[in-house]
């Protein structure tokens, strides 16, 4: 059974979103996504200062067997990315909601936060997907 923490928001492209106390946003891929992909070996992330549009392809995560595009679930400016993943992409498998986070955003005015799924909705979505 995949972990789907209640305190996070989710997308149908299997990203998770955490709204931090200071209003910034942290983004990663879900436990379900890392399990489907298998052993991750390469990650390409957006750069600090990059302006991301909603649903834009902003990077890639690659496992031994496949490459998956990474979408920005929200619009905003990149304020940080997880540089550790360059040499340790396995963090995405081992700790997808913790040390395997991908990048942080400062939200744009119209960030489309309301489009995200709650934990229950995401759980239903992946159950249907199977």
């Amino acid at each position, binding site marked *: 059974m995949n972990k789907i923490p209640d305190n996070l928001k989710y997308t149908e492209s299997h990203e998770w979103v955490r709204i931090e106390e200071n209003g910034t946003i942290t983004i990663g891929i879900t436990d379900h996504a890392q399990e489907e992909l*298998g*052993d991750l070996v*390469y990650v390409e992330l957006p750069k600090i200062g990059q302006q991301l549009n909603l649903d834009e392809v902003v990077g890639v995560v690659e*496992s*031994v*067997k496949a490459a998956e595009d990474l979408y920005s679930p929200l619009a905003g400016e990149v304020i940080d990315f997880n540089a550790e993943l360059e040499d340790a992409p396995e963090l995405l498998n081992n700790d997808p909601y913790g040390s395997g986070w991908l990048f942080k955003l400062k939200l744009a005015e119209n960030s489309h936060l309301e489009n995200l799924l709650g934990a229950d909705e995401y759980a239903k979505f992946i159950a249907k997907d199977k």
Partner: protein
Amino acid sequence: MGKRTPLYNKHLVQKAKMVDFGGWDMPLHYGSQMNEHHQVRRDAGVFDVSHMTIIDLTGQRVREFLRYLLANDVERLKKTGKALYSCMLNDQGGVLDDLIVYFQDEHQFRMVVNAATRDKDIAWITKQAKPFAVQVRERDDFAMLAVQGSQVRKKLEPLLPANLSASVMALAPFYATWHDDEFFIARTGYTGEEGFEIILPAQDAPNWWDALLAAGIAPIGLGARDTLRLEAGMNLYGADMDENYSPLESGLAWTVAFKPADRVFIGRSALETQRNRGNHSILVGLVLPVKGILRGHQTVSFEGGGVGQITSGTFSPTLGGSIAFARLPAGEYKQVTVTIRNKPLLAKVVTPPFVRHGKTCISFLTDN
């Protein structure tokens, strides 16, 4: 629902992630493709390869038939049990399939062909066999296991049937031994490691599987099978070659026996024309000295214009970087450019294998 091997339920017990492969429900991995890859290089693993097609060919003229059917020459098989890797070609010299054929006796040869090409192969072989009065019998009553890995000999030995144990341990590479239809074992494989392939009655397979696992030979999925074979520099049918390309264009010229010159085989005249004309495409190995993953279908470009394509690419768990096969126009290459998501990256051209018997055979560093 796809076809199931006799070990389907065993895969579920091992919590395999099952995928469709050529119409079969097969295990992709049992948790971690990467760990399974290392398990074979460093220790020992077992693959269920029962989806592969086993064909017994029998008749007075079976050797003569195979000398006509295959691009490699079974005349090379003099000793009982000797195996030969070959392509089977169409009249245009395109590769219908790649296979292994075993010489059992003058009236019986056993052949193992790919799963995804089964129907096409059986139809072709049956048609070609008619004039030679050779019987073609698919052995779907068998299962097939590949046990591979640096430590496999000592783990397998105690499990072998008493009447075959000594002869199995004495097998030279690319030889097989057997006892009737009960047990057929060959020192062959698709990983670049020491290992054996075992053909046995389907109903015996589950008990064998349990015994192998109990002996510390871990289950390995098709995912690791692919990274192991690519590291070992072995082609995958349907990716690195198919009916549109000849063995000469697929890095398999070494499997074509042009001598003796008077042996007629299917595709020979097309291959000779191609060889004499030269200027045909070639298959090369690539390594990527920077981060990124080479994948099939990525475009390859090089100085002087022209393009090629990656046929198989992956992350190499043993080397910790990306490796690939690419088909390029005739020429000599030191490095090429692979464009990954609009980013041009330099890749070094190398001669496979990349890894054999756990040892690295190539360098990721560029030579200047």
